């Protein structure tokens, strides 16, 4: 462990991983409770459109990913609240649509190269100091917003209509939540990849739900599972030369299975 942490790139990787695990698991708790689990996948694919535009047009892919993910999250929320469409159907349409747009942009621009590949599967070991600072700044803002409105978001997740009739600003908070999740996903895809961020956002909460405890404890267990998975996954990937993002996801799935078995009725 000490040998592993003697490398600068591993120190950055661990720091980035811990930050992403914290952000993904806390935001994931609200997403899962709102039955929005597929949103993380959809926004990750939307963020990929931003990356593709950035790579082809020469803009910063991270900022383009954030912008497109936010636009996509607002589209999802608008369609959900304004039309009688099933939420999961909206997510499926945007997911496949985003992927199609990303592929077309990249093929037209001839930029289907290693850069895009790293955004698909993550490249935690090539995280730069600049990436860390960006994740820290926007991650802190996102986390503060989630914590500030956690009691309202929890109420909305439990019963949106009763929350509305109690005076909670449901519409504003729904948009805020999807915006924050979009930012967190866009920040994360560089680290764990657009195909894998959904797992880090959803599975820790689903595993924590198996313990059947209250909201606060569920959030805490989810956070611990996400942090443990990232640390364990990166350690295993370092010593066995495995892809870090995929190893992290397999670790979190392993903990989910254990949680399921331990709490079997």
């Amino acid at each position, binding site marked *: 462990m000490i040998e592993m942490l003697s490398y600068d790139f591993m120190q950055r990787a661990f720091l980035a991983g811990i930050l992403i695990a914290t952000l993904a698991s806390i935001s994931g708790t609200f997403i899962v*409770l709102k039955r929005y689990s597929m949103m993380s996948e959809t926004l990750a694919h939307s963020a990929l459109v931003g990356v593709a535009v950035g790579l082809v047009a020469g803009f910063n892919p991270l900022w383009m990913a954030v912008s497109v993910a936010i636009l996509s999250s607002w589209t999802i929320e608008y369609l959900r609240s304004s039309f009688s469409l099933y939420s999961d159907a909206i997510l499926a349409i945007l997911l496949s649509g985003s992927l199609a747009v990303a592929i077309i942009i990249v093929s037209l621009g001839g930029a289907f190269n290693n850069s895009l590949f790293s955004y698909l599967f993550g490249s935690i070991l090539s995280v730069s100091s600049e990436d860390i600072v960006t994740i820290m700044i926007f991650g802190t803002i996102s986390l503060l917003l989630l*914590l*500030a*409105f956690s*009691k*309202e978001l*929890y*109420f909305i997740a*439990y*019963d949106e*209509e*009763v*929350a*509305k*009739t*109690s*005076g*909670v600003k449901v519409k504003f908070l729904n948009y805020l939540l999807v915006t924050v999740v979009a930012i967190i996903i866009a920040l994360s895809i560089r680290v764990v990849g657009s195909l894998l961020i959904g797992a880090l956002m959803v599975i820790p909460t689903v595993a*924590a*739900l198996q313990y*059947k*405890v*209250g*909201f606060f*404890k*569920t959030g805490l267990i989810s956070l611990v599972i996400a942090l443990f998975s990232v640390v364990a996954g990166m350690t295993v990937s370092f010593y066995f030369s495995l892809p870090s993002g995929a190893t992290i996801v397999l670790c979190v799935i392993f903990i989910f299975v254990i949680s399921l078995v331990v709490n079997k009725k």
Partner: protein
Amino acid sequence: MPLKFKVPIFDVKNLNFAPSSQKILTNISLEIFNGEYIAIIGPNGGGKTTLIRMLLGLETPTNGEIKIYGKKLKDFKEWRKIGYVPQRASLVDENFPATVQDIVNMGRVSKRSIFSRASREDKIEVEDAMIKMDVLNLKDQMIGTLSGGQRQRVMIARALASKPEILILDEPNTGVDMVSQKRFYALLSKLNKEENITILFITHDVGVIVDDIGRVFTINQRATICNNPKEVLGCGDMTALYGTQAHLLHNHKHEH
């Protein structure tokens, strides 16, 4: 109808709801005053839930006017004065990570500012609501593990935690056994008489509670307001509303 109060809590005038030209509610006008205990009855599909949802701003009327405490719906901000227990509230998602206390705490959310922890007043009101609904001993239990009757009391405790002036309940007895129902009606009556909480609720059990309620609104696309609940069971309105089922309600009353 009580005349001593000048401004009704709800003042509904010529309300119509006809989405896609399908008439759900037609020309509804009614007033609800402070301290009243009102039952809404009517056949399934008659528009009872739609009316309540419009009073709460969850549905938009095709035309007509709703005022709450003298203000138009869009201008009304003091939603904490209204406690709402929706239909099938006791049929909760059993996997939702919430203890009884987590649920009742939700009743205080709109009173707290961002980042603020629960104040002493919040804790007192939450505990008081749990005592009133006799669920304090269940406060650390997961909501999914409770019986239908217990969940129902938790949902009302949540509504009471905000110290509402009016409690609106939509078929609160769905999924609740008969023993719990009788206990529930006794609790509602107590809240109305001792706490002066105005109560408006949808029910099919009007025969059971006819001695306690002040007025009955019968809703079947149109509204009929019966100021004497004992008369409603014998009057022609019931036959018009329920058809051949009217006598069942009448008999139901005598069985109790």
